[in-house]
């Protein structure tokens, strides 16, 4: 382990997970930037996927350490309930045409009640693992549902679902990466790797080449024979 990190964890008592989370953030943010700028797929900004990733991460934490499957299971389950109740609440109130904020308030309330119901069912079924879930990840996911509904309102259902799926996909991918032990050891041994993210972003930030998606989008123009 890097001496500085070792000192902070062993001597000063900063939790290892906090250090991993903070040092992972630049890497996760870079992945999302690549996803948008180089691949060409959109997400709900950069904050939403980071929220989801760390919600998953929090859900996966147990006293004994990180449980990858638990995070994935509860994370996806919660996301499903959150996004589903949000779209149902939106669809149900669409026809009566409400103001934006009261409407969003209804949507978020429904989501909260939905999660509450899920907790109640879990408690009834005696699922202790889920009952003990932290509130922070729940809150993070609910916040993301606002962004989903905002897209839903502006660009329609299809766009909202595609963006949600794209966001969930990149989040799960990044989640798998940051829970990977090899990466943990790497970042604890070489914390300066986090700086690499900044350098990579400087390069991506000046990238003027095509996004991968655009090769498909402009295929018809690119493949036709025509000279200057």
């Amino acid at each position, binding site marked *: 382990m890097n001496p500085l990190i070792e000192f902070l964890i062993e001597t000063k008592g900063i939790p290892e997970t906090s250090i991993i989370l903070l040092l992972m953030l630049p890497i996760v943010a870079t992945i999302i930037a690549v996803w948008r700028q180089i691949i060409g797929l959109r997400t709900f900004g950069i904050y939403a996927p980071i929220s989801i990733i760390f919600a998953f991460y929090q859900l996966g934490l147990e006293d004994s350490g990180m449980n990858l499957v638990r995070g994935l299971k509860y994370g996806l389950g919660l996301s499903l309930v959150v996004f589903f109740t949000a779209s149902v609440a939106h669809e149900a109130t669409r026809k009566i045409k409400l*103001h*934006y904020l009261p409407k969003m308030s209804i949507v978020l309330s429904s989501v909260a009640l939905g999660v509450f119901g899920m907790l109640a069912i879990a408690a009834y079924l005696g699922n202790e693992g889920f009952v003990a879930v932290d509130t922070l990840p729940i809150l993070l996911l609910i916040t993301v549902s606002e962004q989903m509904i*905002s897209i839903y309102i502006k660009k329609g259902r299809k766009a909202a679902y595609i963006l949600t799926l794209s966001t969930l996909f990149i989040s799960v991918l990044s989640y798998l990466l940051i829970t990977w032990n090899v990466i943990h050891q790497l970042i604890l041994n070489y914390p300066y790797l986090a700086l690499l993210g900044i350098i990579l972003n400087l390069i991506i930030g000046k990238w003027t*080449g095509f996004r991968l998606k655009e090769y498909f989008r402009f295929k018809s123009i*690119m*493949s036709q024979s025509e000279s200057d």
Partner: protein
Amino acid sequence: MNLIKALQNRKRVLGINERNLRYIRPYNRRKAKRIADNKLLTKIILTKNEIPVPQLIASIGNYAELESFDWNMLPSSFVIKPVTGLEGGGIEIFYNRDKQGNWIKADRTRVSLEQIKTLARSILDGKFSLHNSPDKVFFEERVKMPKIFKYYAYKGAPDIRIVVFNNIPIMSYVRLPTKQSNGKGNLALGAIGAAIDISTGITTNAIIGKSQPVEFIPGTNLRLSGLKIPYWNRILRYAIEAQKATGLGFAAIDFLMDREKGPMIVELNARPGLSIQLSNKDGLKWRLEKAQGLRVKSVAQGVRLGKDLFGGEIEEEVENITGKQVIGFVEWANLYHKEENLEEKRKKPEVEKVKAKIDTGAMITSVDSNLAVKLGYKEALDYFNKFNIPDNLTRSQAKELSKRYGATIENHEDIVDLSIIHSSHGTTLRPMILFMITISGIKYEVKANVVDRSRLIYPMIIGRRDLSQFIIDPTKKFNA
């Protein structure tokens, strides 16, 4: 896909990353972007520079103004828009007002004042603006679409876009709302994007939806290529003038066409979309590079440069060689049913197929009254007949009657003119109606007089005035 070709052609096409970094950032300063993003500001600045825009009726800046707003001052036909709206969100077009005071949309749905107020409130709340920041509402006149577009645009108006860079028009297309897009001009929703040749103003390739090539208006035999956009030079000029007035270096300028007032700018975009490349089957990148750094001293020079550099020389040449379509002395003509009926049966427009005599001895096209009735003009003809104008007139009588009744008769929405026809049988006064017809695959509008031709062989003759796009081969019959 030929990989090497794709790699070579890649250099012609503009991608989003490059657009943002190399063209929007350096050429569209914040001040200029602010003008483009604010439709009221756009209107003010363009008007100051004498560039036509749809006329502003009123605006509402906040809730207090909304409460005290005098809704009765709105005309029966208007458009409501958010000042900083994105991608057409929050825009509603009202065509008329019913007796209960409801406004009527293109799809005939009725909207009450209360519903309009709710829309206005959600606009003020920022439902349609960037980052949901508070917005303003404005009302402007509804642009009345010219008749030539009627069969091309479904429940909406075609939106003509010119991309300008360095005061040179570099690419253009027209977006046509379709049934699939529900009257919206948004390609992602299924509208059609038809490329326009910069030098001639005539449409060429088209796509429907995001990338699907398309040749005809769906469900019809209306060809998307070959449509000539009226006032083309004026459009190009206004586009450059708008660029000069706002300081946008790289912009997409959107026009609507008004039946009487001609082209008007409805929107400036500081972030031109890239799908125009797909309609044009050509990239923006090489055009931007070619236009870059040229010194454009005047608007006229910018128009000329655009036409010379980016106009389709090849198509022009082909047109010059093959020239006009050759037709015989008798041709099948498809006459389209009056538009109201067409609107409902959009899928397959009602047409009457008749034998038409190509008559270079006549100036004006003539259509049999029974045929006109079949095409939905019964009401117009009944209206005309109410005036009981006799058949056999002298020249001076005809002139006198035309003067006396002309204005009243032309008040009817279908009758555009009266014509005095001298023939061997004497002089008659006949109503003139616009018909959309297709002959030998070419679709256009003719202004024809309507008269009883039931005793004649051909229910329609086409006169010189409506034959300018053809060459007539007198040995031929029925071209297609």
